[in-house]
């Protein structure tokens, strides 16, 4: 009897627990169901790139989204790393020039100029006057090419397709001009330490004059399509605002810095080439948004065409390469007829010219910003170390700051406004 009672009690207890469990689990289920039906407020991590048509190359960005707002954007670099800086340690200075073409591949001439200037600073040589004029003309043509490319792709990213066709029409004309002087459209390899590779043919000058005559009208065409277009204004005004102070702290340079109201242009403050002999001004924005940076680039194209016209008018006669044949290759005629020159030619080709030991940093105002080359020389024909301060790389650093709080649809605009090229960024 006693035993039976105990068993009954235990069975009852077990039954009770089971019942409780059933109730609890059904409760839990209802709670979970309720949770499911409410909106999820978790963060959303979106992977953008590296294969994305609007990231201008192989840039990967991790977007931390809160709804449609960007909370954080983490750029992931290195997909186009080719080790240019390391390869440069095994190449003579002349051999590095075609490598700089491939840094910022939409403005190769500007890269050539920046590198050649750094080497010339180490060598402490003077460049003939005509060469300086030619260099300035070509660098400014390259600036127009770069800004045309930027304007076309930026407008295309935002959704205005016709601008792209019109800017590329002009860009093709200028690239054809590059083809005349250096033989290639993009990989120019035109600047040399101590001057330039080839003189400007007559055809180049007449065609460039003709281009400049119609260029102002063509800029008007782009502005008709964009300047007051309400879609363009809505997509660019007050987007990716960065204050001048922040921009300086992030190391932003070039048009992106000047858009924030900082009047800083290396061509004005550390004049090189013949920039101090021609009349031009530095356009400066006020708001530091995408629209201001667009306006700055349009104005820069106008200023560049002014510089080119003045330089072409004043183009002096003379040599295009320095006479110092310790640095430049001797004339082919002498190489073929003179034994000493031939020996010298062999030495220059095999060992490269010797650069005195020391180090230097030389910044040049390229279309993207300040492109600097830091070269350490140990006195041999090859650099001991070459560090490239690429503006695109520095600008990527400000991406998170500039994109914070804007819509996910704006991220493409923000890439574009920084004018980044991954070849230069990853090097």
């Amino acid at each position, binding site marked *: 009897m006693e035993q039976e009672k105990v068993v009954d009690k235990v069975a009852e207890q077990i039954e009770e627990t089971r019942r409780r469990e059933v109730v609890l689990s059904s409760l839990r289920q209802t709670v979970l169901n309720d949770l499911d039906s409410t909106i999820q407020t978790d963060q959303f991590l979106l992977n953008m790139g590296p294969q994305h048509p609007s990231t201008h190359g192989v840039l990967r960005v991790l977007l931390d989204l809160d709804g449609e707002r960007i909370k954080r954007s983490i750029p992931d670099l290195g997909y186009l790393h080719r080790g240019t800086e390391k390869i440069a340690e095994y190449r003579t200075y002349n051999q590095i020039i075609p*490598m700089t073409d491939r840094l910022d591949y939409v403005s190769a001439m500007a890269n050539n100029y920046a590198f050649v200037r750094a080497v010339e600073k180490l060598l402490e040589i003077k460049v003939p006057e005509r060469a300086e004029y030619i260099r300035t003309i070509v660098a400014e043509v390259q600036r127009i090419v770069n800004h045309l490319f930027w304007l076309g792709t930026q407008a295309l990213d935002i959704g205005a397709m016709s601008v792209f066709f019109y800017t590329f029409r002009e860009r093709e004309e200028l690239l054809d001009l590059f083809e005349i002087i250096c033989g290639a459209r993009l990989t120019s390899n035109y600047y040399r330490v101590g001057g330039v590779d080839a003189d400007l043919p007559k055809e180049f000058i007449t065609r460039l004059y003709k281009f400049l005559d119609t260029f102002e009208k063509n800029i008007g065409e782009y502005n*008709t399509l964009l300047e007051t277009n309400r879609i363009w204004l809505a997509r660019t005004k007050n987007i990716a605002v960065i204050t001048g102070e922040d921009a300086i702290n992030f190391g932003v340079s070039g048009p992106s810095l000047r858009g924030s109201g900082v009047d800083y242009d290396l061509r004005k403050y550390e004049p090189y080439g013949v920039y101090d002999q021609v009349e031009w001004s530095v356009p400066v924005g006020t708001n530091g948004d995408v629209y201001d940076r667009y306006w700055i680039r349009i104005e820069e194209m106008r200023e560049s065409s002014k510089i080119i016209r003045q330089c072409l008018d004043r183009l002096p006669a003379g040599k295009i390469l320095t006479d110092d044949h310790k640095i430049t290759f001797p004339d082919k005629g002498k190489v073929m007829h003179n034994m000493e020159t031939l020996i010298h030619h062999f030495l220059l080709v095999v060992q490269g010219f010797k650069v005195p030991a020391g180090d230097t940093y030389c910044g040049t105002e390229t279309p993207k910003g300040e492109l600097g080359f830091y070269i350490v020389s140990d006195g041999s024909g090859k650099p001991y170390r070459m560090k490239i301060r690429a503006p695109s790389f520095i600008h990527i650093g400000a991406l998170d700051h500039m994109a914070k709080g804007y819509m996910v649809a704006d991220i493409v605009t923000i890439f574009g406004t920084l004018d980044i090229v991954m070849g230069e960024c990853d090097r």
Partner: protein
Amino acid sequence: MGIKKFLNTIMFGEIMSGLKLTFRHMFKKAVTLQYPHEKLTLPDGYRGFIVHRRYENEQERCVGCDLCEAICPAKAISVVGDIHPEFPERRYAKEYTLDFTRCIFCGFCVVACPVNALAMTKEYAHSSFTREGLIYSKEQLLSLGDKCEQDSIGYLKFKNMWEAENSGKEEGRYHFPPIPSVKSGG
């Protein structure tokens, strides 16, 4: 002013002016080319495929000096020089390979060549289904050079190397005069 701006806004004035611009462009001449049928005229300094050149008597110019190999930034050229089998005082390139898969078309090899044996041409549309097909031997480079002799002369003229070659009248020790033609029994 106020009413004008208002009308402009409701009539999509700025978009209309943009459309007017694109519409006008329909009647302008196209700036594009129908590529395979029409081709661009390339400038003399165009840096296309690299070729080997010969003297007027069909003698190849290359002396196998390795300078192009030394200056090539992409390490695309490899040269094996040797003594010429018929003229023991002379050297030639026993093996010469130019790897166009590596070549970056910078034009430095032409600058380095002391005998103007190399030149660049306006050839650009060479392709191959295999990698080996783009590794050119000396014979291939010579035959390509025969095909585009005018291009190579134009290139050298543009780079101020042609005048140098023909201006030097004195028969210096290091002027490389063409050897009498083998064919004519000389």
